[in-house]
């Protein structure tokens, strides 16, 4: 009984996903022309549709050249999507996923500076090579301590200093804990950059990398694409992926099992490489997890496991020590 329920739930979800995917493709083909005709059709069919949800079937060509039969209703939905998609993305993006409290755990003992996280992140968010939503830093806490690599995303603080100072609510904390940025609202004052003690924010000083290609894409606040000149960007915990039940881009891209990601409310995190799912509290307890600069009172939601029992000794550009000029270390652990 229970199983059946679960099954039907999941199959329904799959169906939804498939349909959404299809509608996206459809949108590409149907385009603006359909938007207008569908608008007219909508007026006529609105009444009938209420009576008969299945409606009339129409044959259309999808982006990959397949002929598909869809109901009139879906066609209209797809056409309306063009105009409403952005506001819908905004609405759900600002609302967040209820009941969730995302948390990331970064195991420093496994990081060997492969930088696949950085590459995946920059690819997903259309960033320039010097724009880091996540940045693997070379750290050394004190003179005689061992250096280590420290991937640094945004910490999505529960007491975020950046959202405090934003004058227009362009950067905000969602109910699921993600600190997002709305680049359609941002005025480019850069107060949030000044306020962030972790240097987690980047600015589009010049035209973004893909502004030409992206100019017709509806803005997704959860992906911050298209990026816009004169506005802020930052790590978003891949909010767009989380909505789909996928782990963040960086977490999935890591070849070394550095990242765990999950929901604090479930007390569970999943490793992006091995897909091993463990209890967050136990992982932290057993490994002495900590947060960076917690004395600032920001309550970071990214935890680190200390770099002990390392598989790979620290090595960067052939050197096993940090150039003091290069790091100008403030001390990652306070």
């Amino acid at each position, binding site marked *: 009984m229970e199983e059946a329920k679960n099954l039907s739930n999941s199959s329904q979800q799959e169906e939804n996903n498939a349909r959404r995917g299809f509608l996206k493709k459809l949108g590409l083909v149907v385009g603006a022309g359909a938007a207008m005709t569908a608008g007219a059709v909508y007026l006529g069919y609105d009444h009938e549709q209420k009576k008969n949800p299945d409606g009339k079937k129409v044959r259309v060509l999808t982006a990959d050249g397949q002929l598909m039969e869809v109901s009139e209703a879906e066609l209209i939905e797809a056409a309306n999507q063009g105009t409403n998609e952005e506001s819908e993305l905004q609405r759900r993006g600002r609302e967040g996923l209820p009941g969730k409290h995302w948390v990331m755990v970064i195991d420093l003992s496994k990081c060997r500076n492969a930088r696949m996280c950085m590459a995946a992140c920059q690819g997903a968010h259309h960033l320039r090579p010097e724009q880091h939503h996540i940045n693997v830093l070379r750290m050394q806490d004190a003179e005689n301590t061992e250096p280590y690599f420290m991937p640094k995303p945004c910490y999505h603080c529960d007491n975020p200093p950046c959202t405090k100072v934003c004058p227009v609510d362009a950067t905000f904390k969602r109910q699921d804990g993600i600190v997002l940025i709305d680049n359609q609202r941002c005025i480019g004052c850069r107060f949030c950059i*000044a306020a962030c003690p972790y240097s987690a924010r980047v600015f589009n000083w010049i035209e973004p990398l893909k502004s030409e290609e992206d100019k017709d894409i509806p803005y997704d606040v959860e992906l911050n694409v298209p990026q816009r000149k004169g506005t802020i960007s930052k790590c978003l915990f891949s909010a767009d992926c989380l909505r789909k039940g996928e782990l963040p881009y960086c977490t999935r891209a890591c070849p070394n099992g550095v990242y765990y990601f999950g929901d604090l409310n479930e007390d569970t995190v999943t490793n992006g490489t091995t897909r091993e799912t463990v209890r967050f509290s136990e992982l932290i307890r057993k490994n002495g997890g900590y947060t960076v600069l917690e004395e600032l009172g920001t309550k970071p939601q990214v935890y680190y496991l200390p770099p002990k029992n390392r598989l790979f000794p620290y090595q960067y550009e052939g050197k096993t020590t940090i150039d003091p000029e290069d790091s100008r270390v*403030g001390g990652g652990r306070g």
Partner: protein
Amino acid sequence: MSVNKLSTEESYKSLDKIETDLLRPMTHHKGFELWILFLILIFIVGGYAYFIQLRDGLGVTAMRDYSSWGMYIGNFVFFVAASLIGMFISSVLGLLKIKWITPITRIAEMIALAFAMWAGIVIVIDMGRPDRLLNVFLHGRFQSPILWDVTVVSTYVAISLLLLLLPLIPDAAIIRRRLPNLPKWQMKIYDLLYLGWEARPEQYRIIKKAMRILAILIIPVALAIHTVTSWLFAATLRAGWDSAIFGPYFVSGAFVAGVAAVIIAMYFFRYNYKLSDYITDFHFNRMGQVLVLVSAIYIYFNLNEYFVPAYKMRTAEKLHLDEMFTGHWAILYWFTQIACLAIPSFLLIFKRMRRPFTMLWLSVLVLIGAWLKRFLIVVPVQQHPYLPIQNVPESFHHYIPTGIEITLTILPFAGVLLIITIIAKLFPVISVWEIAHEKGVDESIIK
């Protein structure tokens, strides 16, 4: 500074002389057109620079992610600081019933208004998306110091404007009588402004009461603008900005900048407008003393701001302070602190240094230092975040202002000078009626 009442005949004679002296620059100003042309030229160059910045983005400046506030913000802080002087001279000293300020109040208020107005524009120049300025009003968050800053700066501009305009009412009446041949549009301004001034006792009562209320009102607002401006920095967690004394530290520094600016303006008007009978050595002497006083207070705050953290040398602060004291910024830092603050204020202790010419140059030095100090407060702190700066191009590690940035920093100064020039062209730079009043001229004839 006699307060003896003059006889009616003497009154007319005295008033006539005052009017002639003070109104003369409005009609006789050699090189005025050339000067305006020069300022307009700067505007054209600056406008072009701003166009490039709008077109290509803030990337045309040297600002990058790790020094995301640069010269513009330093400039903004300087402008807000300089604007505080209006409140200091006409309000604080005025309410203390210090008499010698009469001939310099309008100069101070002109400076205040011009700098305050341009402070708002400077901050727009710094914005990545100036086209979205309205968002501040549409989506404003009351928790953000920027909203407070926008509010208090605009309020301050309004009060400063009123404080400038009110004493112009009797002067407008005088101009209408004395200079009826001015262009029509100009006369219209005086017609609007003089409000039917007839020097009646109750008119005096109304205007004096109004000025007193504004003088009191402006004190908290002025303190607020610079305190809130200091909070833009102090409200963050960055070592070097995270300071509890930033408010008073900024306010005391503002007085130094403002007094120096007024001294420079005094010197200029005294010689160019031939006002040496009104702006006398005595006034310079007094302003010199004021500069010593405010500098001493400022030095005291500097001591607290730099040497208390330096005694402890906490990790993050040490990085910043080392760069300031002995590192990358050391030359600029010590030049600012010693050559532009300590030495001028020390020299001005001596009476023989408090002469117009020496004071002019010392004030120029102080003003330059005041600007550099804002730069040093804004920029170096950002280059020492808690976590190291890595994996970014070399240019991200440094901040060397670009030509466009420098042009757009100079532009607002031209703007300030333009506003002052226009006000000084339309109105006497010294309040005629107040001077006449002070010289004992019969009140009822000042109209």
